[in-house]
């Protein structure tokens, strides 16, 4: 059966006008329709925060749970019924602060859930406190003189927790978002899609250099497996490896040709260069990498659980309660 976007729509979103959540929701519904997984075979799990209201607006099975626990709950859903496609929707506070432990362990276990990290670098629902992704010095209601702590970089956490899939998109870029969501759903194992998102009320201008199409042409690079890492309005710039790092070069200048440009390998087991791509930022003269940065196959937790059960079933002679009883030392009183 074919599904349309409308099959995944429900209710009237109540986010602020201009919030990145609106466009992300539309992209998610589009991706769901294109993937064609029936709504009743789909579960969307969230925690607490503005973005965690999202499950109320999708016509699937859904849970909006408690702060930080979405990854743990989504893990239980997937393990109990591996047939389901499970999405987890979290913000930067929900996923990386109060839920940081569950985030890294979901990655480590490689349970087949799709973690969406809507990163607006602010706590919105509690009205404007800095988050674990707010930059050092960030002024907010809870940091009136600027923060004195460094932020997490979600990609670094994901890679550090041995993640096998990391992708990034800008919330207002529907094509880019739909593309990575579909790739994430089709990847077996835990995936992280970092969605860069503006908060018009409490952190307006977050991700500003890449929030528009024009901005992205100048300040972002769309990475694609097997394609050279080039960017710019005319694709005139590219990335090369130099020493231990990456370098931006202009093709045709200083002797660089297209052949010198690095070709993206999302499937490479070694995540060194993928991490370097993911960590690029405008402040250091690099474009921000968008698209699927890492996509490596690995055994998934849920499959391994059931495979082990089958293995033990074949090896052990008892499969029901009364057979289990017989494995004990039993005596008879007459």
């Amino acid at each position, binding site marked *: 059966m074919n599904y349309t976007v409308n099959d995944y729509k429900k*209710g009237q979103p109540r986010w602020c006008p201009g919030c990145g959540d609106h466009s992300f929701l539309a992209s998610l519904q589009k991706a769901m329709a294109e993937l064609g997984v*029936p*709504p*009743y*075979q*789909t*579960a969307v*799990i969230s925690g*607490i925060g503005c973005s965690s209201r999202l*499950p*109320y607006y999708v*016509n*699937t*099975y*859904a*849970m*909006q*749970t*408690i702060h*930080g*626990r979405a*990854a*743990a*709950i*989504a*893990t*239980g*859903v*997937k*393990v*109990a*019924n591996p*047939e*389901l496609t499970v999405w987890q929707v979290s913000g930067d506070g929900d996923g990386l602060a109060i839920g940081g*432990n*569950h985030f890294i*362990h979901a990655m480590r276990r490689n349970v087949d859930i799709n973690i969406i990290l809507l990163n607006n670098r602010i706590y919105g629902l509690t009205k404007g406190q800095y988050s674990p992704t707010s930059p050092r010095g960030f002024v907010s209601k809870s940091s009136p003189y600027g923060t004195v702590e460094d932020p997490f970089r979600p990609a670094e956490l994901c890679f550090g927790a041995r993640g096998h899939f990391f992708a990034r998109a800008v919330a207002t870029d529907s094509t880019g978002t739909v593309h990575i969501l579909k790739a994430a759903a089709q990847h077996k194992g835990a995936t992280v899609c970092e969605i860069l998102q503006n908060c018009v009320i409490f952190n307006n201008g977050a991700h500003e250099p890449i929030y528009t199409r024009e901005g992205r042409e100048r300040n972002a690079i769309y990475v694609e497996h097997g394609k050279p890492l080039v960017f710019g309005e005319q694709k005139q710039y590219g990335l090369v490896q130099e020493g231990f790092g990456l370098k931006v070069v202009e093709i045709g200048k200083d002797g660089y040709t297209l052949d010198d440009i690095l070709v993206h390998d999302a499937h490479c087991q070694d995540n060194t260069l993928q991490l370097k791509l993911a960590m690029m930022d405008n402040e250091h003269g690099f474009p921000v990498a968008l698209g699927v940065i890492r996509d490596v196959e690995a055994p998934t937790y849920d499959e391994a*659980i059931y495979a*082990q*059960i089958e*293995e*033990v*079933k074949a*090896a*052990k*002679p*008892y*499969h*029901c*309660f*009364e057979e*289990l*009883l017989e494995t*004990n*030392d*039993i*005596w*008879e*009183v*007459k």
Partner: protein
Amino acid sequence: MAELEVKELEAVVVRFSGDSGDGMQLAGNIFSTVSATVGNGISTFPDYPADIRAPHGSLTGVSGYQVHIGEGQVYTPGDKCDVLVAMNAAALKTQYRHAKPLATIIIDADSFGPADLKKAQFASDDYLGEMKINPDHVVACPITTMVKDCLQDSGMDNKAILKCRNMFALGLVCWLFNREISLVEQFLHEKFAKKPAVAEANISVVKAGYNYGANTHASVPATYRIESKHKVPGRYMDITGNKATAYGLMAAAERAGLKLYLGSYPITPATDILHELAKHKSMGVITMQAEDELAACSSAIGAAFAGALAATSTSGPGICLKSEAMNLAVIDELPLVIIDVQRGGPSTGLPTKSEQTDLLQVLYGRNGESPMPVIAATSPTDCFDAAFMACKIALEHLTPVVLLTDAFIANGSAAWKLPKLDELPEIHPHRVLENQKFKYSPYRRDPESLVRYWAVPGQEGYTHILGGLEKDGETGTISTDPENHHLMDNLRFGKVARIHVPDLEVEGDADDADLLIVGFGSTYGHLHAAMAELRRRGHKVALAQLKYINPLPANTAEVLTRYKKVVVAEQNLGQLAALLRIRINGFTPYQLDRVKGQPLRTHRIATIFENIILDKIHANGDTFTSRIV
């Protein structure tokens, strides 16, 4: 050699003690199993230190295993022991207080050298004098030497040989109690089926211990014979409370036709439930060792949402961490079994000791109005029934349910008559009805039971959202409407209140007791034994042990107000008494509150109860109620 007397006893208590690594638990376990095999009632209590391996021979490293065997059913592991086995000086020093005045003390004389005595903090080499122990009651046997002699040709190294000392003590105890050595042999052959050499070595040491007793009469005035009476025919096994809990979950899953999912995080004394279930993958059991207690409970909620029979196991500190997730299960109205194997608190407290101090925490320790059924298991074997019933209530009423056990019954064991699965109650999860397809609303309920209908992902036509936010009772959407919230709180409360639980039973002199003893959960054995002792002393006494705490049995108030005097006895500072005072207008019981981390002492509490009956009780004075005894 003098003629040896054989004493016929109704019941006897043996305590094996030694260093943590001395294998006392195994010796005790074999002795209880062998006794159960011949039809004796058994009850056991392992008393082990929190340290995994305290310094060898030190006072903190002593581990004990107490076995109570009787001709009929025994209700407790016994107060004090008739026979104490002490494998070293530290064991004698710390464990003698658990011995009766005339108890037989078996010691390994080789472990009472100057260094051993120093480690055990004896001042001189007259350790018996220091402890005021009558040497006539002591069997000082050079166990280490004799074990070495016995195994000198075995080819085993010294370390392996010394590991068999426990079997010598076991052999000696078997002789003392006229136990068939062949049963021990059989047990060891099965236990070491894959290591026949180890089995043979152990068996030869057991025999050496037995023969030592038989040849020397071991300087004891008597040996004992425990006959078996009141036998209920059937097939039995020895089971601990934690294992019985795990079995209860597996039985319920099979009875309900559901996948069993356990989310858990290691914590003493609950971890054996995780260990047990992790073994049984061939039954399709899924165990997930989570990154923390929060994830353990949360993942179980996810599994429940997805249609599994979901459980999470922990102890008190873990309940603190799970509370937020437990509350989500309350408002989502999902089936979930939360097992709290209570231990001494507050905070890390006494991890290996037993208390009943989480009662009010599990009832009330959550934000908002958060009603949750609570069941307290009354014995190691009752853990099976209680776990089974917790699952049944969770699935049929779509609610989280707390199962309270504690370190005492979780680690203690008893003989358990094997159940038949089809003789256990049926379990009918409150599933969604076919006529609700495409018009399902998750919070519409059965008007009688107030239970909503369970639809799970994968079922077409029932997509819905559950959430931690208050929802409209009709549509399931978010609602902050004051009338709706008031209604929803009342519906959730009413749903739990309407769960049918069995009436509270009164044992003993139900019609004319002068004193009614009231307890809950794991104190059943001790309170029952205290009641029996008082009735033997000629008093009219009854016992009402609560197993279902929320909701309380319908006849609770009627039963508790029927008697002249009521004493509530519990291992906390009056939590059940407080609850009953809230629930029963004008109820002012006597209270016996003990939080020592150790099981109650039957004889001691019987005497206190007797004083209540005789109006000889003196007010405590330093508490807010003068009826605490």
